[in-house]
């Protein structure tokens, strides 16, 4: 089998898994409507919260022509991609264990990494839809500025962010394979990123040493790039440092996480705990 055929088959498998998740999600119609309104409540909360926040330091740190509401809406909407990346791989593994399909999936001609990658497509697509709804409510009801945004740049930053964040997600799945419950990988990365990543406030308001720590988390680059593209109307050239930073994280995290995941998988097949939960 040549490489292009292999790639074609893998892509078809990814789409099959995506279609599976879409079909399952479609069968829960009411949940979709609830999500739509949940996003509205979230957006409204940030809008009213932003009306109380008036700090000269904060105002100085925001991109020109924007306000705290826009800043925090982009921060929260795109920070959620990190949450999805961290949870999607291990939750699809856990779900397959619980509904009894894991063994049947593992005896097919599809490797576990492809199964997990396929299982992450729908959550990421769902997250994108969720983000569009978030920003849509913001624009429709609370004056979130959509004009002049560099959407191509935003998509590039998002793609690089997903790659970088997925490294953490694969590490998290590896942890779950070995230890079954509780996940300090998720806890540590989400906790640290929410403090230093610049979701609710600019990184510049942090103490100097925490600003250095912020530079070691990909979410910082992701949110900076996203805000620059959507709110600051930055060009692709201006977005390059954020995108390059994210690709650097991906280049380091993905091979390391795959190696650890392969070890964990082999370990689970050796100890017989692959399908335990």
């Amino acid at each position, binding site marked *: 089998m040549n490489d292009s055929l292999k790639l074609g*088959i893998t892509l*078809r*498998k990814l789409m*099959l*898994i995506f*279609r*599976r998740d879409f*079909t*399952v999600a479609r*069968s829960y119609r009411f949940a979709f409507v609830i999500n739509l309104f949940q996003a509205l409540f979230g957006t409204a909360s940030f809008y009213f919260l932003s009306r109380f926040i008036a700090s000269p330091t904060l105002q100085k740190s925001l991109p020109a022509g924007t306000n705290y509401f826009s800043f925090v809406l982009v921060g929260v909407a795109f920070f959620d991609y990190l949450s999805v990346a961290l949870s999607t791989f291990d939750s699809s593994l856990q779900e397959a264990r619980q*509904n*009894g*399909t894991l*063994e*049947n*999936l*593992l*005896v*097919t*001609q*599809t*490797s576990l990494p492809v*199964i997990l990658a396929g299982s992450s497509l729908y959550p990421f697509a769902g997250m994108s839809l969720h983000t569009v709804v978030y920003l849509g409510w913001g624009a429709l009801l609370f004056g979130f500025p959509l004009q002049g945004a560099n959407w191509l740049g935003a998509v590039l930053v998002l793609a690089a962010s997903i790659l970088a964040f997925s490294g953490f997600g694969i590490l998290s799945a590896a942890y779950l394979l*070995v*230890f079954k419950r509780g996940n300090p990988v998720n806890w540590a990365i989400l906790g640290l990123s929410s403090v230093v990543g610049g979701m609710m406030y600019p990184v510049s308001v942090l103490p100097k040493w925490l600003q250095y720590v912020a530079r070691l988390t990909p979410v910082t680059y992701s949110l900076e790039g996203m805000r620059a593209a959507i709110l600051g109307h930055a060009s692709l050239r201006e977005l390059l440092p954020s995108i390059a930073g994210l690709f650097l994280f991906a280049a380091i995290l993905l091979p390391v996480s795959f190696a650890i995941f392969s070890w964990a998988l*082999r*370990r689970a*097949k*050796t*100890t*017989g705990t*692959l*399908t335990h939960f």
Partner: protein
Amino acid sequence: MENFALSLENVEKYFPAGTSGWRGFVYPVSQLTVPALRGISFDVKKGETLAVVGANGAGKSTLLRILTTLLIPTRGRAQVCGFDVSRDPAKVRLQIGYHTGGDACFYSRLTARENLTLFAGLNNLSARSAAQRIKELTEPFHLGDLLDRQVRMLSTGNVHRLGLARAMMHRPSVLILDEPTRSLDPLAAADFRKFLLREIVGAHGTTMIFASHTLTEVEQLADKIAMLDGGRLVAWDTLHGIKSATRVSSLEESLEILTRHIARGKP
């Protein structure tokens, strides 16, 4: 070696001792010290049906999981159609179909057809081949009325037939069944056995290995019987051979005699 569908040579499997509390935290990766299989060797010819019997914890499921590549043997060599389960797991998976007796092994909110199409795709069948194969399996597996219903709406017996159809979608050379009638009522189990005999053993000439506690099933389906006890292979023969050796007329009595001999240390 190529004439054998399954070939095991001195297969051993050890699991780690269970740890809990602070020990589990301090020593998360424990040593493999608990034996599950010890020195298992046998060959199964193409087209033969092998039943694996033994008490709970004898090692039946461990043996089957090694053959499906879900477990890696600690020592020894296990081959399926000439491919080693540790070195060529992907090639082994191409040769096998696997079905367990559990009834929660599908995506319950997908239809039977959607489930079959998904698993066919994961086994490298194109959409067209999958559709064609579903058509071929519909009549013998009595799937006609079930295909477009969500799996959660199907009876346990129907889910089992669907599970078997899934295992046969990619035309495997070896079918591996772990307690296939475990969750079926006696009538449904009898029906399922007839179905296996007619559609798998009789019609396709597929090699089959199954673990079972139901001796009727073993008598009806198996060409050879392997009895495991404490992870060791303590008996390996045809039904007739086992009955002759123990000089009784029923398999149940034969296994009782064998078990008593083993307990006295005379395998």
